[in-house]
């Protein structure tokens, strides 16, 4: 299997041209970026608001957990049947729903992670609620917030293969087409490309996440030092964020 896979991956014809891997990668990324961006437009303000005011946490947490359990394939097929196949809307909506919980958790956990004494002092020196949020809480929350975004991107990249099922593009196309005609090198090739794409994006976002840690926090040593990598670093990947463990799911 592997030599055939290698042949398939190194054949330029599979990359260029209509329906080639490059096009599919571009489509795949387009779905991902739009879905994550849309989810962030909703989830970041909500997460920040809940974390900042401390109100509405139970409702929002419940909502996030319910969204997490929603099967994306089910949502997308249902919506496609309602609004028409080959429409991008259902796919983007389904992927957006997938992306909301990690981003929400990241924003919430980020704001909650700010030292309570610093927030109290911020109020005490005369910052308004808005100023407290933007000058103190958000800068310190950035790593966890970005961790949430990173997790969302990875989830969506992994699941955007679904788009092909309802007739759209993306890396799901060669995967599903290859399955249908039992062209296993193509299937495996698509799988490998998706995996590599996910890994590269994760690496890149991990770098951004590290870069966004305020210098003053990087210098703090000890178990809270944001120097850890891996699925759980600052809100980590996909579903697993410290927020989950810390109470957003309890």
């Amino acid at each position, binding site marked *: 299997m592997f030599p055939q896979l290698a042949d398939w991956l190194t054949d330029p014809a599979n990359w260029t041209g209509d329906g080639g891997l490059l096009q599919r990668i571009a489509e795949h990324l387009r779905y991902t970026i739009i879905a994550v961006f849309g989810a962030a437009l909703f989830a970041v303000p909500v997460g920040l608001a809940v974390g900042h005011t401390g109100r509405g946490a139970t409702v929002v947490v419940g909502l996030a957990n319910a969204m997490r359990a929603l099967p994306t394939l089910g949502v997308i097929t249902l919506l496609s049947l309602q609004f028409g196949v080959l429409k991008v809307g259902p796919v983007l909506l389904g992927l957006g729903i997938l992306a909301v919980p990690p981003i929400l958790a990241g924003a919430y956990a980020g704001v909650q992670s700010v030292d309570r004494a610093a927030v109290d002092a911020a109020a*005490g*020196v005369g910052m*308004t609620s808005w100023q407290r949020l933007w000058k103190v809480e958000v800068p310190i929350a950035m790593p966890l917030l970005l961790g949430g975004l990173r997790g969302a991107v990875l989830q969506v990249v992994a699941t955007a293969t679904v788009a092909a099922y309802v007739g759209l593009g993306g890396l799901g196309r060669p995967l599903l087409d290859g399955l249908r005609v039992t062209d296993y090198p193509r299937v495996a090739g698509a799988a490998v490309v998706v995996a590599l794409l996910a890994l590269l994006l994760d690496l890149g976002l991990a770098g951004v996440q590290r870069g966004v840690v305020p210098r*003053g926090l990087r210098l703090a040593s000890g178990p809270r030092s944001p120097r850890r990598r891996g699925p759980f670093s600052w809100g980590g990947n996909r579903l697993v964020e410290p927020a989950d463990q810390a109470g957003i799911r309890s």
Partner: protein
Amino acid sequence: MIEFRAVTKRFPDGTVAVDALDLVADSGKITVLVGPSGCGKTTSLRMINRMIEPSDGTILIDDLDIRSANPAVLRRGIGYVIQQAGLFPHRTVLDNVATVPMLTGWGRRRARARAAELLELVGLPTAMGRRYPAQLSGGQQQRVGVARALAADPPVLLMDEPFSAVDPVVREGLQDELLRLQSELGKTVVFVTHDIDEAIKLGDRVAVLREGGRLAQFAPPAELLARPADDFVASFVGRDRGYRALSFVGADGLTVHPLRTVAVGDAVPAVDEWSLAVDPAGRPRGWLPPGSAADQLTEDVLVPGGSLYTQGGPLRGALDAALSSPAGRGAVVDADGKLAGGVDAAEVLALLSAQRDGS
């Protein structure tokens, strides 16, 4: 001047944290709120800058009802220091201190210059301005917190157990710093602590609050020690009241006797009484017991001395020096630490009774 008029705070679960508090904190003085946990001292403090809103009653700062001001604007005119410092970890020390000036619209450069002045004022090297809070020790962080509170030169300073989280040695240093700053700046300070000794040391007037948020006594520390209003205050103030009250009694008229001295390295004199060994600068090093068998005076022959009484200090220091000395006579030093003579415990007590008779 800060005035509490029948201020009450009731929490939603029914607890009454502050009960009809009437208090006036004089301008330019340090007013300490002290009491056991649950006495409402922190709650009272936080009502001054509207971090907590009173349920009943009014608080006035310089005759202006605080409710008439926008909370954020009010707080920019009040310095606020809390126990864990609450420094912003993502900003440099300098930017932390410059926070309020920048909030009130000073330019960044002007605010930072002011911040640098303040770092010096609280006894920190200006180079520290470039560091981040995580790199500072607890004591240093507290100083930065005080600097931040003073940056916009507010007339009022609120301090909520600011020195409780540091070790005793550092705490004493910070307390002395505060007294020094106050002598320079003359702010209206409201200071909360659970430590009665800190309250007595720092306060111009001390308010003792009891559980349930009621005022038990509001008086200068000397009066608190000499005439506690009731059993609660007496027990809260603690033991050795009489002794500690001596901190407020002057030592005018106390005789300082000359002391037999020897220098380290000299031959041991053959005498029947204690001698005080001094170093070349004249500072006490220890006592030489009478009838010592050694020939040469070396450090290990000496018996360590008791506390030293600095001239001009309160009578308590003189009594302690006399009581703690192995020779029965306390060593008195001048402002430079040079030996000035000795004091007797009996004469301290005689002076005390003479003062009482005379007053």
